[in-house]
């Protein structure tokens, strides 16, 4: 009979082998598995990209964009007045269209983000993975902001091309009409024409339009965290939009000493002033078109205020969404 190894010895050898195999397997796994981080830009970027793709695929946004572009194009043919009048109407209509469509897009696009994810049950798939809720919200908002940026860029590009084309045509017409005049007079006419066409202050005006839309998107996200449907969110936001434009009036009236109004009126004014954003501060294009120059400090302060509003509303949306039962 062949000699057999003692039982104790055999067990020890087996255990060593198991330990070695386990250790090597663990090292292999560790080399592939990335440690979970509490905050990741990559995860946010993935949600942003996905949100943007979802929104771009919705036909309603193409419709809005085409409508905005048509309105801008239409403004070109609307006024058959003098060149100053024509440029003023063109700029007013174009920037007004940009403002309304970017605001509408911000509200409509954001209002349906969470309800749609709940309906499609994609939210459960995302949040079941190690994705914190604040990252989910940040990704969603960033997707909308990206869409807004692209829309405003497209509208601005079309507007500036129209403005340039009209200016070019009118410069040629002026040169033909003033051919018999002295060179100084021709230069003066051209200077006057160019001054009423393009104005560098239009760019800060467009940035402020974008910031207003971003603010509205963040506020819509906050409302949608507790809203039961996207229709409710949109309706609430329409009211917020109108009241937000009157907030400055309510604030002024509240802060000034009006002894004639009762405590109920004062309480209502205080509520409007404290709870609603001041959207009138972001309405600078009206005066920019009329030729008012926007100082750099004023633009920076307004832009910072817009960013602060967006950040605070996003934070409040996170507070609301954090404890929400899905």
């Amino acid at each position, binding site marked *: 009979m062949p000699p057999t190894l003692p039982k104790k010895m055999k067990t020890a050898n087996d255990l060593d082998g198991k330990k070695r195999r386990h250790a090597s397997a663990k090292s292999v796994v560790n080399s592939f598995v990335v440690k979970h981080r509490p905050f990741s830009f990559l995860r946010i970027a993935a949600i942003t990209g996905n949100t943007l793709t979802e929104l771009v695929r919705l036909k309603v946004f193409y419709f809005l964009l085409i409508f905005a572009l048509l309105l801008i194009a239409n403004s070109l043919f609307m006024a058959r007045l003098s060149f100053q009048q024509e440029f003023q109407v063109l700029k*007013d209509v174009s920037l*007004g269209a940009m403002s309304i469509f970017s605001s509408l897009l911000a509200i409509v696009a954001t209002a349906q983000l969470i309800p749609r994810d709940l309906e499609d049950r994609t939210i459960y798939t995302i949040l079941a993975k190690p994705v914190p809720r604040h990252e989910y919200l940040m990704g969603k908002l960033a997707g909308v902001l990206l869409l807004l940026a692209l829309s405003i860029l497209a509208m601005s590009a079309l507007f500036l091309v129209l403005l340039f084309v009209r200016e070019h045509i009118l410069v040629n017409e002026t040169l033909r009409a003033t051919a018999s005049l002295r060179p100084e007079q021709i230069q003066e006419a051209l200077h006057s024409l160019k001054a009423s066409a393009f104005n560098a202050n239009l760019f800060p005006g467009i940035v402020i339009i974008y910031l207003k839309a971003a603010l509205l998107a963040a506020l819509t996200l906050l409302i949608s965290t507790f809203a039961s449907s996207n229709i409710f969110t949109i309706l609430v936001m329409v009211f917020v939009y109108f009241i937000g434009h009157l907030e400055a009036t309510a*604030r002024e009236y509240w802060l000034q000493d009006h002894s004639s109004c009762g405590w109920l009126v004062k309480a209502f004014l205080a509520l409007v002033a*404290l709870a609603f954003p001041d959207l009138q501060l972001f*309405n600078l294009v009206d*005066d920019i078109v009329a*030729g008012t120059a926007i100082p750099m400090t004023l633009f920076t*302060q307004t832009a910072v*205020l817009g960013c602060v509003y967006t950040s605070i509303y996003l934070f409040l949306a996170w*507070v609301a969404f954090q404890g929400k039962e899905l």
Partner: protein
Amino acid sequence: MIRWAIIFSLLLAFGALRLSIEDALTEQHRSAYFHQARLGLDLREQIGQLGFLAALSGFRSLVADVAFIQAHVAWERTEWGRVLLLFREATTLQPRSVLFWDMAAWHMAWNASVAASHDPFLTNNALRHKAQDEYVALGKDFLERGIKNNPDRPQLYESLARLYKEKLNNHAAAARLFARAAALPSAPERDKRFAAYELSYVPGHEREAYEALRELYDRGEHERLPTLCTRLKYLEQKLAIPLDERAF
């Protein structure tokens, strides 16, 4: 429920924090000539509830443009009363648009006033003159209010100066307004010249006008325009400037 109370409290706290900041920022906006429009109840009666709502919701400029285009159509139909009302709306909604003030004043002081002087419904010349003067006053009023809203721009000073010169025959006021326009940083060079021309017509200011015109003349060929030379020559003769000091 507690979560919503916390959120609402945070929202109000943020509101309280931004209150003074927004108030200060609004003041800064106003001092930089933003948000000058005063949208009162009288305007609501003029433009209607829907237009007023649009104006309050950030489409003030668009509503003003619509009023302006309607005023243009009313002018083509020579409906002067309607032109006046629509221009009042447009200028109230967009007080920073120099174009609106200028056009309103031009329609009133030039077009409507001339139309009034040929109005077949007015029975005699006295009534026609009265109507004419009233339209000129309306034009003047538009320009004066326009200047109050746009004190930093030379165009309306120029227009008011032209109105004083051509419609009211007040060269002293015209000279003063051209000089005020010339003092602004964005003023064209012609304003200084025009101020000197107008001053040359004001009795008792000949010496002052002569010095201003001579200074311009000495700047070089580009300032030696026909009107300047004519007025300078006239003043040299009137003031009996010594021959060796004369330009002509």
